[in-house]
């Protein structure tokens, strides 16, 4: 039969196919010597660049923390401690900061780190137009000098209360390398020579980044020899990698995986405030016609939202716990103001949130004269001119806003307020937002610096025309307090002012802050112990603090 000729061919083809893709039974070769202790971390991102001057993503900053040193270290509880310097002397007027550098820092290529490298780095960051973000932190530096190898003198143009937070992201670069770079904005920094406790071994963009402990750092002596951060584009794959032991820790995971992972043996799931705090906000357009930015301003906001009673009613009509439970599956903290709980002492936790109660919301609106005169379930303005129908926009790249907008629509309908939901791409949203003020309600958010200064500035009158103010809020008392906290050098007093500012905007109901999202991470308990799991404040297992604390399970 002809079939007989045909079948062997098929069988051969199938065999060939099977061989071509047959699993190689051998285990992947172990990295380096048998003794080497390797920590394997799984994450969903990858550093965008190794150049500290142009990096944007937090993954890049995680790498910088391991490879570079800076003047101060930001601790998990929101405080700062000296890193490169052993002591600091501040002049009485607060403008001259004299740092004495600790001995024993060397760059990974063997060159010693001196005060000269520090002064070079700060001046380099300050003067470089190709570095978009870092000049912000050197804005108050009048001069940076290194009179000798162990002394750095920074002279400020005016005394500022948050000097530490200006210095933490200014990583110290080796002068002998960076002074040779012709175009720093395009420099890839592939060698990434720093002075930190870990040095770069290999960086495969979008795949993995591999570090090895130098064992020569004067402050930190990690008990692991190597750390590999591997990227998993798919969140379910990330969780599976931890489950099967292909990684020892994951820096993020979908909230939907938390419940099943908690039941897993040898795996611990931890959650807490994020190391890079973020805040979700429901923005009300409250710009008064007289404050409408000339030129850019459209200021088409619904007049009812300029009435504090309406905003107060909406706050009472918003069930934050339900938003957290549904949108974040419970992994968030109820929000109060733009200053998130991740900012430690600056977060005003004395404020008591508006109680969720639809009846309260309805009675506030009744008293304020917003009645439903035509009986369609939606209230009208006191003069009957238009219904309380608000446009609600959110950026279409948001994962939380779609569900949140639907829930808010239902909740606010209980108080007789209707919304019309529309997602916009972030560019278009920016163009309707600010300084155009061509919206009623926007669901958006901010990432925060460790210092509250920037987020507080967002609500000042001066920012209405710049596009940073999203609400168009203008309150002279608040503006004055903002200026005061910017020059108050006494930490206690500054915190007092910052708390008062939060109280003012909370009572004016500028925003409804639904939640501060928590970070959720997980690690294998059968591999390493000693993780700093967030009892001290913020949670970041990938931070240097944990990487120097952990040790292998015996």
């Amino acid at each position: 039969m002809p079939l007989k000729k045909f079948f062997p061919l098929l069988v051969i083809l199938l065999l060939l196919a099977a061989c071509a893709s047959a699993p190689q039974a051998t285990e992947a070769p172990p990295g380096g010597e048998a003794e080497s202790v390797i920590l394997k971390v799984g994450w969903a991102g990858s550093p965008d660049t190794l150049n500290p001057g142009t990096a944007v993503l937090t993954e890049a900053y995680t790498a910088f923390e391991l490879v570079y040193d800076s003047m101060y270290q930001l601790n998990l509880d929101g405080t700062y401690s000296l890193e490169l310097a052993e002591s600091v002397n501040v002049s009485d007027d607060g403008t001259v900061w004299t740092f004495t550098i600790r001995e024993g820092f060397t760059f990974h290529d063997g060159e010693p780190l001196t005060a000269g490298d520090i002064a070079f780095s700060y001046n380099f960051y300050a003067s470089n137009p190709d570095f978009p973000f870092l000049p912000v932190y050197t804005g108050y530096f009048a001069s940076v000098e290194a009179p000798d190898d162990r002394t750095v003198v920074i002279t400020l143009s005016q005394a500022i209360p948050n000097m530490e937070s200006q210095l933490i992201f200014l990583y110290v670069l080796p002068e002998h390398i960076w002074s040779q770079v012709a175009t720093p904005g395009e420099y890839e920094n592939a060698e990434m020579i720093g002075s930190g406790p870990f040095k770069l071994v290999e960086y495969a963009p979008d795949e993995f980044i591999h570090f090895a402990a130098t064992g020569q750092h004067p402050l930190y002596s990690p008990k692991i020899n190597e750390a590999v951060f591997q990227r998993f584009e798919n969140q379910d794959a990330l969780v599976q990698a931890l489950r099967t032991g292909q990684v020892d820790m994951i820096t993020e995971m979908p909230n939907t995986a938390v419940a099943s992972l908690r039941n897993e043996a040898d795996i611990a799931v931890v959650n807490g405030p994020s190391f890079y705090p973020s805040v979700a906000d429901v923005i009300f357009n409250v710009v008064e016609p007289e404050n409408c930015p000339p030129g850019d301003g459209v200021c088409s906001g619904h007049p009812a939202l300029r009435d504090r009673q309406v905003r107060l009613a909406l706050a009472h009509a918003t069930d934050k716990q339900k938003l957290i439970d549904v949108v974040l599956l419970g992994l968030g903290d109820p929000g109060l103001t733009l200053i998130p709980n991740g900012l430690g002492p600056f977060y005003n936790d004395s404020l008591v949130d508006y109680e969720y109660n639809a009846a309260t919301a309805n009675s506030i609106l009744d008293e304020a004269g917003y009645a439903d005169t035509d009986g369609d379930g939606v209230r009208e303005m006191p003069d009957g001119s238009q219904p309380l129908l608000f446009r609600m926009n959110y950026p279409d790249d948001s994962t939380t806003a779609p569900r949140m907008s639907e829930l808010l629509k239902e909740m606010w309908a209980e108080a007789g307020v209707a919304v019309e939901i529309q997602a916009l791409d972030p560019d278009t949203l920016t163009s309707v937002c600010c300084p155009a003020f061509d919206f009623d309600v926007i669901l958006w958010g901010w990432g925060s610096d460790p210092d509250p200064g920037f987020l507080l500035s967002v609500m000042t009158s001066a920012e209405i025309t710049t596009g940073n103010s999203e609400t168009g809020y203008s309150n002279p008392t608040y503006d004055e307090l903002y200026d005061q906290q910017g020059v108050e050098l006494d930490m206690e007093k500054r915190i007092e002012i910052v708390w008062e500012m939060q109280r003012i905007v909370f009572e004016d109901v500028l925003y409804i802050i639904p939640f501060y999202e928590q970070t959720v991470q997980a690690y294998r308990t059968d591999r390493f112990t000693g993780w700093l799991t967030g009892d001290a404040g913020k949670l970041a297992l990938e931070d240097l603090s944990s990487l120097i604390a952990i040790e292998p399970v015996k």
Partner: protein
Amino acid sequence: LSRSRYILQKFAWAVFTIAFVIVLNFFLFRVLPGDPARAGIRDPRLTQEAVEAIRVRFGLDKPVINCFQSLNPLETGDCFINPFETQFFIYVGNLLRGDLGISYDTNRPVKDFLIARLWNTILLIGAGQILAIILGMALGILAAYRARTAIDYAALLTSLLAWSLPTFWLGIILLFIGSSRFGLPIGGRETAGGSFATVWQEWADVGRHMLLPTLTYTIVFMGEYMLIMRSALLDVLSEDYILTARAKGLRTFQILKDHALKNAMLPMVTLIAINLGFTVAGAVQIETVFSWPGLGGAIYEAVGRRDFPVLQGAFLLVAFSVILANLIADLTYSYLDPRVQAE
């Protein structure tokens, strides 16, 4: 129409299409609203000088083309400038020199990035395609030859099922089974941070990582090839000249090999050409599930980050390979079926 004229005509069309794509590609990304210098970098603290420096670095400070500062029709620009100082001519000039620009996102040259990703994609999708073509064709031939028997129905059902499986779902399922039952790696191209004594060890490691994504790809595409092969061959087998061949007493294998297969290959060639062209675009879903650093994933990310230079380069690459694959298909037709060039 002579054969050489036919070939020349097809080449001319390909060149014209590529030129059209180059122009379209340029304007496509510039009609989008928003400032590319600010897209992706949404930090409000960015100073005006910093934004300006970014615009200069990426050449966005120059007018798009004569008379237009940007592609916003409300903003007209200077008509009397040197056309070679406009973004369009700089783009074309750079392209001719093989320079695809710098990624907004990573500050790396787009060309180096795309080439690295392209090889990964060719490795993965190439292996998957070859397996799918071989298995699909074999199954298709078998099913057509044993038409309307249990073997045919089984093969048909399997192929239909495989072809209709959602790629993403199949990938996830294979990933879960492969990693927990067989200890296969979950993602990446090779063991992260691994060091290899020999090149063979490294290749074995890459092979292990390729196994699951290749399997997923093969299963999904095998079905498509099988269905097309089967129906094309069935059509041909019902032709009169096959009956004649049978009447002459030729053996079935000979009929298949010498008379039927070549004619049944036309639709297969079309399908293979189309699929090979799009191979370069990668398989976004498979690459995402298995964290394979290929082109599909790169395009997907560049869309999310609005990294226009990368998108522009990737689109060009994909368009180029689709056109090339079509050209090859056209030329293959004329070999397989001489009637084609006469039309």
